[in-house]
């Protein structure tokens, strides 16, 4: 199902104070971006339990984004993003071992003032995932079970 007719489903866990705010600004300012990201607002990326990422992929997401405030000093709760940069590399390693391409998972920092950066990320990441094709984790598992 590659190609122009595949619309990636991307889940984005965005921290309320930074990236969600940037996304909001990007939307209000009518910045060009595809509508493929389903945004889930969290108060801090430190709230993003690795299980959220795994569940998103297991339930049908083709790509996942986790984005929040820049370390070291921007986190609204001081050090929530420290937890994020300790956890996410290990989540990356786990996903890789599962066979989920690393291009399907993006984590990083976008501050509230960086709305254009958010719009660019959405454009680039959507295309990146579109090229990879659908992940369809559960359905693939069932169909290949024979």
């Amino acid at each position, binding site marked *: 199902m590659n190609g122009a007719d595949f619309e990636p489903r991307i889940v984005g866990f965005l921290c309320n104070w930074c990236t969600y705010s940037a996304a909001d600004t990007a939307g209000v300012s009518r910045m060009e971006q595809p509508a493929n990201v389903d945004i889930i607002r969290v108060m801090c990326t430190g709230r993003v*339990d*690795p*299980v959220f990422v*795994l*569940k998103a*992929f*297991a339930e049908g997401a083709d790509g996942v984004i986790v984005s929040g405030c820049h*370390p*070291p000093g921007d986190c609204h709760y001081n050090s929530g993003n*420290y*937890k994020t*940069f*300790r*956890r996410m*590399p*290990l*989540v990356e*390693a*786990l996903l890789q*071992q*599962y*066979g*989920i391409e690393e291009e399907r998972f993006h984590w990083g920092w976008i501050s509230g003032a960086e709305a254009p950066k958010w719009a660019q990320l959405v454009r680039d990441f959507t295309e990146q995932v579109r090229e990879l094709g659908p992940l369809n*984790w559960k359905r*693939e*598992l069932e169909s*290949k*079970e*024979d």
Partner: protein
Amino acid sequence: MAQNGKLKLGLYWAASCGGCEIAIVELREKILDLDAAADILFWPCAMDFKYKDVEAMPDGHMDVVLFNGAIRTSENEEMAHLLRKKSKVLVAFGSCAHEGCIPGLANLFDRKSIFERVYLTSQSVENPNKYLPQTSYQMPEGEIDIPYFYNTVKTLGQVEDVDYFVPGCPPQAPQIWAVVEAILGGNLPPKGSVVGASPDKTVCDECKHNREEKHVKKFYRPHEIIPDSNRCLFDQGIICAGPATRAGCGALCTSVDMPCRGCYGPAPNVLDQGAALLSAVASVVDADTEEDAARIVAEVVDPIGTFYRFGLPASLLHRTKLE
């Protein structure tokens, strides 16, 4: 209950090692009490009842079936369905039936790669004609069948409706006896519960080591350091699954300074044991920059094997991607 008031009991093993049967034997003299209270109507390990005896039973004939072993082949699955039909209460007994256990690590591979290794490339196999298992083979006298080997190991709960789960590899004898008593006394919790283990605690609660705040600057594999027997192993940088594992075993492994590997299954209210453990491990890394954090967590070898040692089939993603 049978005419003589005894509980009608069945025990079966699917893709298992027999350890859960030995765990029943570990009841020691209490096995005589079990024998007095129950009529065992099916137990291939210890008694001579055949599959056709089970097939001939009326539906729901057995009061309780303790089913251990993971679902690896079509025969395992057929027996799961048959024993569900012939029992009133079906218990997923032991880690294999509960969450896949060690045979579940085969979900890192597929049928083709497993067959190639086992039957063609293994150093101790001699197979010059390169025979691979086939579900049906014509011998001179007639046809011989073997079950179909699935690509993916499943838990009992993934193929059948399970009433209770007894975790552990193996379940510990005192816990087994507690389950037997609960069954005989008729006081079991709601359907779907995990029994024979703590309802609300993790292994850390049973562990005797002293826990302090964790600041892990380096992860050590168990053979790389000699741990201090008094301090928490995790504090010392040894990855221990205790924080993500349900209590019930008495923290046997940590009592000999070996880290827990999670055989009692996910802690209560945890959706995915491996993700919970990964989160615990990464959260206590003592790093204030992204580079340091990345460097320290890169020391974790074999993430799936470490975090999902016993629970890969039960995990959210179930297995690695199939080609």
